[in-house]
């Protein structure tokens, strides 16, 4: 397994190196952590887009893109990532390894661009350029409204919103139109300056690189002033035993109904029992051998997809299926029955074995992609866990049926969200 080599710069940035010869590229990812909050989310989400518009050296999108293309199509990406109740600004740059383009110094050149995008944005009268902010606000508004276009994701996101109306986790990763509208170039710039100065920052480098040289290179590039002391972000709200199950339905002119169930697992990535929960989720619905796929799809032919998914930091589990509206009751009963079966310990030896192997397989391939490596260690940073992949594999090896049943008893159904067409007989009778 590729191991992490970490170091903290005097300017309070943590650098993590993952040296490995197996990739054709070098990936650099810079993370700037922020809390997910209704008032801040749209502002935070707007930042990567505005920063990508230009730097002092490359003042327009076109200048920047030309430069990146010259570097053998270096890939620059900036976005926000929602993990639990965190909204993380992520900037990444992937360049072809220098050995495929001798004499080009792609990594050094790329790092300089990445650093400029983050710390030397193009300014006009001492603040973000008005046109850039205006145009990117329009683009972000389009993105926020565009959630509805992809019905599978829309249904999952809407379920979360209905489930967490007063919690930070209920905030969409790109924020809302209401909070986006009043953002001004000046306000946004001030906000960014403070964020860049105070919030926790991590840099990952993955690829065939020399450790010492790369530390120096990154240190040289990322030398802008920052405050000492790690910025503390508030902990996440995880533990919650809901009362009566909430039922929400929404009607749209669509062909297929989307039945989504939101569960509180009362277990997060930080907890000892996290791996038990991961196992529970595997038995229920993350693989083709899982109960949901086998029963909702294979036995009853009710759906093409039926799965369960964990949000590991918040400890929420979502169960999603695409069904005929008329089959609502039958599908719901089958899903609820599967959950009950696990609670009663009705888990076959094959289900235990298959889940064990499938999960181990997933952990073993983490090191096969630079992006999944960064994602794995990012989860570690957020969940304050320092263990490597091997730790999780060992834990999975040792899981017994009792562990799964015990964790299942902490899982509570909170919300049923049904996205449906106007016609059809499905849904709860109101």
């Amino acid at each position, binding site marked *: 397994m590729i191991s992490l080599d970490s170091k903290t710069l005097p300017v309070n940035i943590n650098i993590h190196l993952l040296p490995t*010869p*197996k990739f*054709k*590229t070098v990936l650099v990812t810079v993370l700037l952590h922020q809390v997910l909050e209704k008032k801040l989310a749209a502002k935070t989400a707007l930042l990567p887009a505005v920063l990508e518009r230009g730097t002092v050296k490359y003042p*327009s*999108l*076109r200048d920047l*893109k*030309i430069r990146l*293309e*010259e*570097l*053998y*199509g*270096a890939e620059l990406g900036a976005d926000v990532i929602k993990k639990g109740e965190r909204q993380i600004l992520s900037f990444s740059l*992937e360049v*072809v390894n220098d050995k*495929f383009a001798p004499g080009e110094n792609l990594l050094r050149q790329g790092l300089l661009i990445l650093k400029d995008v983050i710390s030397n944005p193009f300014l006009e009268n001492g603040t973000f350029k008005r046109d850039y902010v205006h*145009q990117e606000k*329009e*683009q972000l508004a*389009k993105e926020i*409204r*565009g*959630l*509805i*276009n992809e*019905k*599978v994701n829309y249904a999952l996101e809407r379920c979360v919103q209905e489930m967490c109306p007063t919690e930070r986790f209920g905030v969409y990763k790109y924020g809302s139109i209401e909070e986006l509208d009043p953002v001004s170039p000046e306000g946004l710039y001030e906000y960014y300056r403070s964020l860049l100065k105070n919030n926790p920052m991590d840099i990952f480098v993955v690829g065939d690189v020399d450790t010492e040289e790369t530390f120096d290179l990154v240190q040289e590039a990322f030398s802008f002033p920052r405050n000492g002391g790690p910025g503390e972000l508030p902990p996440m709200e995880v533990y919650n035993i809901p009362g009566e199950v909430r039922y929400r339905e929404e009607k*749209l*002119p*669509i*062909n*297929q109904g989307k039945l989504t169930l939101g569960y509180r697992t009362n277990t997060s990535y930080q907890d000892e029992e996290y791996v038990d929960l991961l196992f529970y989720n595997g038995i229920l619905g993350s*693989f*083709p*051998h899982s109960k949901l796929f086998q029963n909702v*799809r*294979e036995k009853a*032919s*009710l*759906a*093409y*997809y039926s799965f369960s998914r964990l949000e590991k930091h918040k400890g929420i589990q979502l169960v999603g299926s*695409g*069904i*005929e509206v008329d089959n609502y009751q039958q599908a719901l009963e089958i899903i609820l029955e599967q959950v009950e079966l696990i609670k009663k310990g009705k888990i076959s030896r*094959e289900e235990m*074995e*298959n889940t064990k*192997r*499938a999960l*181990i*397989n997933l952990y*073993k*391939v983490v*090191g*096969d*992609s*630079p992006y999944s490596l960064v994602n794995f260690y990012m989860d570690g940073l957020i969940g304050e866990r320092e263990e490597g992949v091997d730790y999780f594999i060992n834990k999975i090896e040792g899981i017994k049926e009792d562990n799964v049943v015990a964790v299942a008893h902490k899982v509570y159904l909170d919300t049923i969200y049904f996205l449906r067409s106007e016609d059809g007989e499905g849904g709860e009778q109101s």
Partner: protein
Amino acid sequence: MQWQIKQNETIDEKIYYAPLEGGPDLYVLPRTGYNKKYAIFSTRFGSIDNFFRAAGNGEEEITLPDGVAHFLEHKLFDEEDGNIFDRFASYGASPNAFTSFTNTTYLFSCTDFFAENFKLLINFVQNPYFTEESVAKEQGIIQQEIRMYQDNPEWRVYFNLLKALYEHHPVRNDIAGTVDSIGMITKDILYKCYNTFYHPRNMAIFVTGDVSPAEILELVTENLSRRTYPPFNEMQRVYPREKAAVSEKKITQELAVSQPVFNMGFKDTYDYLDGRELLSRELASELLLEMVFGKSEHLFTRLYEEGLIDEHFSAGYTAERSYGYTLLGGRTKDPEKLHEKLLEGIEKVKKEGLGRESFARHKRKMRGEFLRSFNSLEFIANNYLAYRFRDIEFFETLDVLEELTLEDMEKRLHEHLRDELHAVSIVYPFRQ
């Protein structure tokens, strides 16, 4: 059996190739340091193969209901003693399959028990077991798959565009077929297609990851030695003649979306191409699209600043033996205006000519992208066979790209991006 070795110094990769007597072609690309092992078994049978003359039987002509290749893909996972998914699961592998317009591919990835999983793959793909009951049961599942896509605006806008471009060619039909057409599929149709298209001479295997070519060759030869295949009488695929002009200039549809989705297509004019010539056509077209619509070009910047496109706007070229087209587009607030501006932009480039600097830069970018994509085992295997089925050696990509000249681009610009060869497809939000 001897390996033939294909080496590519530029990308630092080596492929072991064994043309197995009477069996499927076998390719192995070892990648040290990877935990994942990935294997695919593909056949040249896709949704467009819906009309053919079977060999023997007095050249019987067969017309299939739409969606058979995809339906067969779903049903091949059934064995007499249950679903093969369970067997893979017991070895920790995740099996899957996908059907395109031209191919069907079965695959698995795993970290342990490679030999066991690999044998399962070779065996289940060569062991059809279809019954009337299991066909009926699958209809419910695939119906839901079709319905899911009916609600997907990107999917709808794309298939509507293909319908606008092509009047007769079966690429105009959805890969999964329709709720009606899959209702006509029977077990006999599945067997007929299986016997026609799943002959090993119409198939190939690709394995990659930290694997030993010798071990894989042994596994395959041992497995094949226990089988006898009838001689391969190749079926004749028949595609209707398609005129050069598009079928319809514009197709529109309304869906539950927040704003319109716009696709524009240019239909290529060849009847048939394969091999290096087809690869060259594909790369020239891709490079041209980069030079006209790329993110570093003035046209993209103008449209972006006017808010007519977003960062997801893209342009690409598809090159198959019997058809080829350019597709571009994305979400937009004003599809009519975007359409007009794109046509204007193309005319402007034609008038002003393509730039030498832009040509060199985009070529460099494509080189880098090709290299970068070799991080992914799935990318390597899936593409290698998809190109091989068009008689293209995928490893020649960089060489063929290098051969392209600015003059080729000018020629391609004027012959391909022509007003009379284009159609548009738009998905609008429902009008209140």
